[in-house]
């Protein structure tokens, strides 16, 4: 099976983000980038499928700046076989433009399965995977936690409010990945070394005219400081009174 996984870099989620002086972008200085966590989950699922189906191969497709190659290398070490690094220092924050570039590349590979994260945790746009699928006219199941493969068919599990939708689909297919039951494997030093020898093709993107743009970024108002009502069981009646009379939520 030919599998593609689209990965993007995002700022490390535990760090502070600072708005740049232009008021429309994030100050890149000192920001550490990591693979978008949902893309890592997707890669893990792809590697599991590859382990099940002999002769499978995983290609990464990443539209990220030149200096983001470290995330591509890490993903190769986790278990991909090769990568296409489409280099762009300024990827527009326009999901349709991004999806078109990815679709153009993915079309060339005739993949049986294409994995995306359900969303990238920078701008939380939550759409690129499904858009690519529609552009390529492929079936797509979004927000899947995990998969079962048997007899050429894939069963995909998708969480909805209060339940799980179970889908059956025959490749070629696009999946977008929710956090699932499987932890992402941690690459060993040996795998990190081997990743350096795996092929990375580099390309240049052609973006369509944008229809979406950021006009302003701002910090949300901070939550007003709360209060410690008290210690232990003695504080319970006062808490209930405050919730009833001050906050009016019970």
């Amino acid at each position, binding site marked *: 099976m030919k599998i593609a996984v689209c990965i993007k870099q995002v700022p490390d989620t535990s760090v502070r983000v600072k708005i740049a002086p232009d008021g429309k972008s994030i100050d890149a200085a000192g920001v550490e980038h990591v693979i978008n966590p949902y893309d890592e989950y997707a890669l893990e699922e792809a590697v599991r499928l590859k382990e099940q189906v002999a002769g499978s191969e995983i290609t990464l497709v990443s539209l990220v700046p030149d200096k983001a190659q470290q995330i591509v290398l890490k993903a190769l070490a986790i278990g991909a076989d090769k990568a296409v690094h489409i280099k762009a220092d300024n990827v527009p924050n326009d999901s*349709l433009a991004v999806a078109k570039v990815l679709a153009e590349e993915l079309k060339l590979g005739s993949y049986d399965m294409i994995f995306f994260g359900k969303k990238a945790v920078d701008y939380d746009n939550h759409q690129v995977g499904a*858009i690519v699928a529609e552009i390529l006219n492929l079936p797509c199941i979004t927000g899947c936690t995990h998969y079962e493969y048997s007899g050429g068919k894939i069963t995909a599990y998708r969480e909805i409010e209060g339940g799980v939708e179970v889908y059956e689909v025959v490749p070629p297919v696009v999946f977008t990945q929710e956090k699932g039951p499987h932890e992402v494997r941690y690459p060993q030093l040996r795998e990190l070394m081997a990743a350096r020898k795996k092929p990375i093709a580099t390309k240049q993107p052609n973006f369509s005219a944008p229809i*979406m743009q950021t006009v302003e970024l701002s910090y949300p108002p901070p939550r007003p400081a709360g209060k410690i009502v*008290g210690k232990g069981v003695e*504080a319970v009646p006062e*808490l209930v009174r405050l919730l009833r009379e001050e906050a009016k*939520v019970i």
Partner: protein
Amino acid sequence: MNSVLVFVEQRQGRIKQSSLEALSEGRRLAKKIGSTVSALVIGNQIDSLVNEISKFGPDFVILVQHNALANYSPDGYRDAFLEVVKQEQPKVILVAGTAMGKDIAPRIAAKIDAGLATDCLAIEITDDAIIATRPVFAGKVLQKLKITSSTKIATLKPNTFRTEEVSTKAPSIKKITPQIDPSKWRAVLRGIQEPEAKKQDVSEASVIVSGGRGMKGPEGYKILEDLATALGGTVGASRAAVDAGWRPHAEQVGQTGKIVSPNLYVACGISGAVQHQVGMANSKVIVAINKDPEAPIFKFADYGIVGDLFEVIPALTREVKKLYGKE
């Protein structure tokens, strides 16, 4: 041509509350630009939903029905939805940010080359654009995203927009039997698994009692269930609890779980890591119960009790029951 189209989601004949929020917002936007608002409902045998939808003041209710659309189908609902979009040519499409809404909105966007803003907190509308305010970078920043495609699509964050019942004239009803061909659908829904005990989803709950590593194990959640029941809410969990296998992922709140916005969020034995915080910081009121007075959760909780949750929670449950006269 200039209209606002709101997708009103139903499952098993039940309309989503967040769709009614979207409908109310759609009506407000339509008023601003002097246009009409239509409610689109897709399903099978859903005529009876018109009454409830009408309370929120749509000018039109468009019912798209087919026996193959009784359950959600990504292919089927997309095709039915697109048929209506092509007829109506709306200026703005609003969709509630539910599992279904998040699935269908980008598909429509792709098919008509429209810009899509997801998880919106507010929407401004001008002659040729919408500007959506939405949380980005895990809620640490707010983005104003401008969309200038001829149709603009937005999904709205649940529990954010006000519902508004209005008494205007009854809407006109349009009934459509869509030109769909189920034999061509490729992603086939085989079934919907429901947990044995039906439980309200954290993303829709107005009260959440959430437990973290401090619960010590799966048995600990019994006292949270009791408190949640007393408050008419549901149980949530931190990632530490989910990764330990104590609770299902569906209950996880946070960056890689669900983003919730209840009226009341009670965090029990949860330290308040930033990845948890981003999932629940939009709650109206946050209560923290933690034995460590230095726990970060106390920095953003409205009310805190420092103490052993295994003592405090049962006491709180008793007090709430007393208040509601259940004991």
